[in-house]
């Protein structure tokens, strides 16, 4: 199977189970909608916490989708065939991550402005939010893929993934939020976006290597 073949296969699978992707976005919006009840509906306060709420809930939504990333392929044996195919397993993993991002990260970015509006966030920060999420959510998929691959075949794999992945998500969260905060405060956003991009580039190298190693272990 070629790189594009895996992507189009995963996308077709996702399209046939549209409800899965829709559920993730619904979870995203619903969790964010809990915060006004938790901290009170005061408009200024909501605007102040909006970037953090959007990022944290996006992170949790990605987490929710990770367990299924390799599980079906692992259980029906396609993963072993992918490992046997002439395409390097690292590239296969990258294709699966890209498909995962297209079906979870991208819908989250599309839904994020809705939460920003609900939270009274000033609209001039929206382009920064979108750029930051565009740079940050692929990192979440990449790091998450390592966690999902490592826990294949584990007891309680679903609970284990957050424990492994969340600590590694923290840098993305920090710079993702600080980029939007900088845009809201009128400060330069470029440094934060560059740091987000640096994290993305590092995980673009580390994640396929570590994830493919983990998949090989799972296949043994």
């Amino acid at each position: 199977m070629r790189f594009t073949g895996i992507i189009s296969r995963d996308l077709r699978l996702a399209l046939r189970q549209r409800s899965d992707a829709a559920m993730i976005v619904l979870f995203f919006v619903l969790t964010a909608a809990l915060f006004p009840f938790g901290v009170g509906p005061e408009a200024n306060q909501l605007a102040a916490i909006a970037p953090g709420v959007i990022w944290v809930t996006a992170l949790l939504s990605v987490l929710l989708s990770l367990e299924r990333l390799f599980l079906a392929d692992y259980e029906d044996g396609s993963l072993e065939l992918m490992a046997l195919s002439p395409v390097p397993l690292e590239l296969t993993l990258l294709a699966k991550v890209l498909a995962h991002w297209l079906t979870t990260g991208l819908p989250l970015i599309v839904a994020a402005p809705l939460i920003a509006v609900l939270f009274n966030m000033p609209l001039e920060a929206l382009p920064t939010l979108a750029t930051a999420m565009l740079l940050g959510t692929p990192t979440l998929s990449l790091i998450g893929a390592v966690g999902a691959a490592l826990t294949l075949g584990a007891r309680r794999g679903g609970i284990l993934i957050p424990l492994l992945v969340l600590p590694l998500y923290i840098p993305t969260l920090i710079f993702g939020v600080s980029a939007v905060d900088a845009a809201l405060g009128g400060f330069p956003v470029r440094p934060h976006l560059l740091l987000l991009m640096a994290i993305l580039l590092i995980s673009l190298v580390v994640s396929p290597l570590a994830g493919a190693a983990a998949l090989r272990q799972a296949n043994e």
Partner: protein
Amino acid sequence: MILDRFANPARFLRLANAILPWCVGATTIMLAAGLYLGLFVAPPDYQQGDSVRIMYVHVPAAWMAMFVYTNIAIASAVSLIWRHPLADLAANASAPIGAAFTFLALVTGSLWGKPMWGTWWVWDARLTSVLILFFLYLGHMAITSAFDNPARGAKAAAVLALVGFVNVPIIKFSVDWWNTLHQPASVFRMGGPSIHPDMLWPLLAMGLGYTLFYVVLLLLRIKSELIGARLRALDSLRQDAA
């Protein structure tokens, strides 16, 4: 290769048994000397008074937190590359010890922070990155025991340890890269230590004592793992015979 010489568990056990008493003795002496020097001989700080003595427990614990994680990462690399049988054992035996050191550093730092900074905790870069290190230790321990096949758990933990190693340089340089409430390095820095010798010597004694203590615990834990493996092997032999 030198590593191969110790791949034999029997040889390792002989060596461990030979050096263990010496390590226990040296640990006792160094920790006693370090605590005495730190708590009674070293001068109080001109600003912090006697609260500065927390440093002699806190700073070596923080060093160990990073040192043990680095060891785990090295052992994991050795295990993944050369399939060295003792490397997995060393990594898995180190993780709880490192987690304990990290917890000690976080707690003592918090106890010092309350009178000095006026708060138990601040979310600055150094504290946050050490907290992440603590979570990485916990994740490492959780994944090690999450599989029915212990070998699979050890390998998965090794991959995780290598990925998590990116955090160690971030901890070390966090005080230089960001404006933090935590003070910058004063011992391991370019241009030599900036701390007065009266405080440096007790600190180094404690650091050496902690390191030896880690070695003692590590050897004991690896020994008990090896003995446990032998017991399990004997048990299955007996069941086969029966």
